[in-house]
């Protein structure tokens, strides 16, 4: 039984969608991997890279956006992380991975407005062309990565949620990101290196 050529082509295109997605996820950073630097546009128009931060001991990378209700619920806590840890050497760098053509509420203008209105003390970068988030293996917003700067480069030490209660910041039992950064600041190993949480899938 011969399958007509055009159907074969359609089938290949159709299934390769799923295959390429899997490959992206499998090749993304794991705990202990060295992260490639990025150069992304900030809401102030300047380009930002991790190498700009000469005195940093590491980074709190937050994949987040304007539109996701979970990202909104955590926005204040991301701002607090920067206030608490930037001076200790772990600044927040927020990256919006969503494609504004798919999610108009995440346009560059909307990002600028939000950063200004809320008074972000950290860069809020556009992942133009949606290239950086797949390298990290971010799948949703918010999705956090704690990196430690070493001689080998910036190493992934924590991947996951900010804490264990999106609903009520005052009812949080474990602040995952803070525990990770605190451990690194003390020169200790991060105990809980990965956590899971519900989030909005990235609109690419």
């Amino acid at each position: 039984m011969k399958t007509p050529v055009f159907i074969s082509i359609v089938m290949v295109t159709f299934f390769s969608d799923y295959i390429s997605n899997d490959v992206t996820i499998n090749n993304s950073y794991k705990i202990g991997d060295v992260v490639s630097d990025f150069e992304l546009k900030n809401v102030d128009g300047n380009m930002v890279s991790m190498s700009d931060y000469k005195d940093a001991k590491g980074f709190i990378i937050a994949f987040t956006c304007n539109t996701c209700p979970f990202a909104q619920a955590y926005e204040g806590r991301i701002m607090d992380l920067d206030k608490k840890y930037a001076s200790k050497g772990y600044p927040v760098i927020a990256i919006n991975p969503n494609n504004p053509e798919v999610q108009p509420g995440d346009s560059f203008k909307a990002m600028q407005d939000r950063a200004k209105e809320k008074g972000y003390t950290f860069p809020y970068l556009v992942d133009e062309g949606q290239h950086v988030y797949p390298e990290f293996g971010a799948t949703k917003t918010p999705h956090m990565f704690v990196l430690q700067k070493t001689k080998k480069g910036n190493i992934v030490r924590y991947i996951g949620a900010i804490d264990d209660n999106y609903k009520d910041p005052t009812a949080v039992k474990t602040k995952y990101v803070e525990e990770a950064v605190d451990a690194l600041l003390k020169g200790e190993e991060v105990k809980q290196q990965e956590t899971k949480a519900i989030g909005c899938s990235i609109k690419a």
Partner: protein
Amino acid sequence: MKYIWLLILLGVLSSCKDKKSSSNSNVESSTEIQDVSSKAKTVKLDVYNFNDFKNFLNKANDTTYVINFWATWCAPCVKELPYFEKLNQKYIDKKVKVILVSLDFPHLYDSKLKPFIVENHLKSKVIALDDVDMNAWIPQIDKDWSGSIPATIIYKNKTSKFFEQSFTYELLEVETLKILNK
């Protein structure tokens, strides 16, 4: 046999095109809005913590369960809901049961979720999962699930498959039949 594939593929192609969802009715009269809100008040919504919800994941009988995790704020979830509805209707006599598990924020159950159920005439069973300790329960659903939605489990008895992805109707039907015919 090859015609089945042809049909499936044509279905996939055409489904990619109909982006406009019919739920985007632009002008609604105030009486219709009142109608929705009064009907929404009568919607009974069962809310579970994960411990109680677990019972939906391991029912040992000959029904095929299609369990979809979604939320009204999740655009790709809302887009694929009609496919789950269609599956539920089409296979209602074949022991297929769709359960739509909402992960909406509890404070929006009355203002968002219930009116959504009424407006979209959802026939499948809708329940809500409210359990903040996500890191405890997400890996129990599937160890590889990052927590991004939409996500779906299709299972019958001990045979189960997990999907962290969006579906077309055709793909959803194919995957359901694979489990159904086990």
